[in-house]
Each structure stands twice: as structure tokens, then as C-alpha cells.
């Protein structure tokens, strides 16, 4: 995978082309759950990014040591170790964020983006490539969460990072911070990402009248040489 492509590709692909949430559709549960506010969304994204970079590097370093048969438990153990570290740091230095994220912070352990990257990428590639892949995926995840959190908080609560916005705060569209609104924003962002990633479609050439097998008869009927109706 990384042999013929430059290392920077491993970093940039996670941001849009293989965005974990919007294109690979991984980690949708935290995406929908924590994006009711932009600050918790950003916190979740950063926490997951830190875990992703660390776990990807370590798993990549140990990829020749871990037996294939027990690789999943081994990956989970490594990921859980980093999640515990991150959780302790968040608890110590950002207790409000810890409260906002609640159960979703420890649940990063089973976040399928992290396990997915371990299985799909880190177990097959070198340390540098894996760390960059983790960073790119993490930033893509954070960016998607940030966008969703912003849209949902601005429209649904009339504020951004807790600061109220003059016009919208008067009549927020509540549905945006409810689950259906979350799914709606998620779908819209996925559609936009697909649009940005898709190559322009070439229009099929128009088939002219002359190419039609009925062309000859049509002309005869039009000229009144044969009876019938067009």
C-alpha cells in the first residue's frame, strides 16, 4: 500500500478521500451522540485522534510480534491502555469535558475507526506510515465531528461553543439537537463528501433520429408515402 505512494498520501487521504466518518462510515455511534454541542464534539475528536496515533504506532511496531490468531484481543488491550491514559488526563485537566462526553470517552476503546485502522493499516505498514495514517484519520474524524457539532449547535441551540448567536438563539430549530436532526445532518455531510470525491460524470451521447431503426419508416409516414400515425 505504502510502497508506491508518498508518505504524505497516508496523511491526506483520511481528511476527505477516505474520511472515516463520512466515507468509510465508521464510528457513527460517537459521531451522532456527542455532536449536540461543538465543544464536546471537538473534545471527542481530539481524544480519539490521540488514541489513534498512539495505538497505530504501537500496533505497527509490534505487528511482527503479535500472533495473527490473537491479534484482535492484543489490539484491544493496546487501545484500551491508551484510552485509559487519555481518560485520566481528561478527568484531571478537563472535568467538564469528561462530564459532557460521559460514557463515550471510555467507549473509544471499541470505536471501530481505531480498531479498523489497526486491522486495515497498522498491522501491514511501517511505524511512520501508520502514525501518519492515524493522524490523518483522526483529523478527518475531528473535522467531521466539528462540522456536525457546529451545524447542530448553531441551528439547534442558537449558540456556538456556548456563546449565543443573536438571531437564531431566539427560535432555535430544536430538531437539530435531537437524534433525527443528527441523522439528517450526518446524511447531508455524507452526500457533500461523496459529491466532492466523485469524478464528473460524462454525459452519454445523444442518439440522433438517424440512428433509430425506425428512421426510414418515420420519414415515409411523414412524407405521406405510407399510412400510419406518428
Amino acid at each position, binding site marked *: 500500500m505504502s510502497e508506491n505512494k508518498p508518505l504524505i498520501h497516508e496523511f491526506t487521504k483520511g481528511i476527505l478521500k477516505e474520511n472515516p466518518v463520512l466515507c468509510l462510515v465508521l464510528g457513527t455511534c460517537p459521531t451522532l451522540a456527542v455532536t449536540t454541542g461543538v465543544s464536546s464534539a471537538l473534545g471527542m475528536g481530539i481524544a480519539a485522534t490521540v488514541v489513534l496515533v498512539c495505538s497505530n504506532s504501537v500496533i505497527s511496531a509490534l505487528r511482527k510480534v503479535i500472533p495473527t490468531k490473537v491479534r484482535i484481543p492484543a489490539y484491544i488491550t493496546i487501545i484500551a491502555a491508551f484510552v485509559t491514559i487519555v481518560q485520566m488526563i481528561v478527568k484531571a485537566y478537563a472535568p467538564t469535558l469528561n462530564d459532557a462526553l460521559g460514557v463515550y470517552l471510555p467507549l473509544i476503546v471499541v470505536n471501530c475507526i481505531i480498531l479498523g485502522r489497526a486491522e486495515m493499516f497498522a498491522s501491514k505498514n511501517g511505524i511512520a506510515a501508520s502514525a501518519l495514517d492515524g493522524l490523518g484519520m483522526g483529523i478527518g474524524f475531528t473535522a467531521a465531528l466539528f462540522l456536525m457539532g457546529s451545524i447542530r449547535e448553531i441551528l439547534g441551540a442558537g449558540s456556538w461553543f456556548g456563546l449565543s448567536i443573536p438571531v437564531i438563539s431566539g*427560535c432555535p*430549530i*430544536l*430538531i437539530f439537537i*435531537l437524534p*433525527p436532526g443528527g441523522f*439528517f445532518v450526518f446524511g447531508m455531510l455524507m452526500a457533500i463528501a461523496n459529491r466532492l470525491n466523485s469524478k464528473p460524470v460524462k454525459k452519454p451521447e445523444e442518439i440522433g433520429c438517424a440512428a433509430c431503426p425506425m428512421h426510414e419508416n418515420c420519414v415515409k409516414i411523414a412524407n405521406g408515402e405510407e*399510412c*400510419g*400515425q406518428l
Partner: protein
Amino acid sequence: MEEKLIVSASPHIRTKTSTTTIMLDVIISLMPAAAASVIIFGFRALMIIADTVLAAVLAEYISRKIMKRENTVFDLSAVVTGLLLALNLPVGINPLFAAFGSVVAIVVVKQMFGGIGNNFVNPALTARIILLSSFPSAMTTWAKPFYYNEGAVDAVTCATPLALYANGQITPTKDLLLGTTGGCLGETCAVALIIGGVYLMLRRVISPVIPLTYLSVVALLSLLLGQNVIFELLSGGLLLGAFFMATDYTTSPITTKGKFVFAVGCGILTFLIRTFANLPEGVSFSILIMNILVPLIERATSPRPFGEKEGKL
């Protein structure tokens, strides 16, 4: 001789019915309810109707333009959606919210899934539910009938018959028939809705299977559980839903058997929500849930071609 004999391919018998004429019939059938709403709730009702219809038509035109698809404004389906949405709103709603509802109905529910004939749920109904969960207080503040005669600056509010019923108070049948109760613009006047529904059935725009089954299931369940049958039938959005929402071509089954199953489901859900759930009214939610089940109903009830062996597909 040759002039009189026209050789042409089938079909030989054509009807003048088109999407536009069907939609026109629906608009005509909704006129009694719209007129009743203007009489009961005053000039503001007319303004809300104009607001949602205009917003729906504009949304349809602009979204088709942006998506580079052919202009479908003249099939009048957007007018019907806007009109139905207005009849599902309380009179005191902010016109901006109402217009937002129209845009959601047309752009999100209809055009994003491919326009007329491709939406999987009823656009007006979905817009109503989105408005209900977005602006819960504005959507449940009901103006008193003829409040505009009382000379008060702010509209005088009152509860809907179903909300009153939850508190043990039964609205007289005469008020339910004439619509002099609190409620959405178009749901209060039962007589106007029945006239519209009968017109649609006589014009064969809708088949009577869905509305009649829907209403009978609600009536039967009310009878079995000892509720006031007449009250259950005439109050809330049941008539509006049964005649105009549940019968939407795109979001109801094609076969008669399927229509029957669909309507029975609507009736049971409506009754369950009304009687046992926390909400006073459940017509919109039950139709929406059954809309989503339509593909499954279609699959179960599609007729098997003659001679086809079982398990062949």
C-alpha cells in the same frame, strides 16, 4: 376512406387524467376545509395558507433548477403539499416557521429522493412532524375559534378536543362537526373534510378502501374499549389524515389488499397512540410509520402472475 381509418399502435383509449388534473381535484376537495379555517380562524388562516403554498412552489422551482431537472411546478403537487401543510398547522404559528416547513417538505422529503412519485413518506406530514419536534410550544398553542371577534390583542388560546378529553371533558358533537373547537387550521371542521373526501371518492381520485378501513378500525377499537365512537372519529386530525394524507399515491400500497393492510395499521396505531401514549393525537405518527412499512406491505401483497410457481423468484 383512408382519412377515417387511422392505423396506430396501442393504447387506443386514452383518458384526459393527468397528474395536474388529479392535483387540481385534490385542491378543489381541500377548498371547503380551507374556507372553513378562514371563517373559524380569520384572515390570518388565509395568510398562513398563502405563505406555505408560496414557499412550497418556490422551493420546488428553485430546487429543480439547482438540480438541473425539468420544471415540475405546473403539476401542482407542490401547491397540494403547501396547502396540506397549512391545514396541519395552528393558526398562531410564525409564518417563517411555516415556510421552513414547506421548504423541508419539498426539498428534503420530496426532491432529494427524486421528486414527485419518489418520496418514501408524505412530505406535508413529515414537515408537520419536523415542525412539531422543532418548535413544540408554537406548534401546540391553539387559538380559540373566532378569537378575532373578541377584540383581544393576543389570540386567546384554548385546548384541542383531544387534549380536553384527556382531562375528562367531551366536546359537543355539534362543535366537532362545525369545527368551532381549537386545533389545526384544517382539522377542526369535520363537515368540510367529509365533503372534500366524498368529492375525491366520487371523482375516483382516491379509492375508498384506505379512508373507510382506517375510520372503521378506529371506530371498532373505540367501541371495543368503550370509548365514545363519534367523538374519536370526529376529533383531531383523523378525518384529514384518513382522506387526504393516508391516500397519497406515492406513499400508500397499490393493491387493494395492501391498501387494506396499510389502513388497518394506521387505525390501530392511531388508536393506541391516542389511548395509551403520552401524546393526545397520533394520526400523523401512525401514517408516517405505515408509510415506511409500505414497501414491505407491497412485497407481501403483490399479486402472483397466473401460472407462476411458488418459490420461483
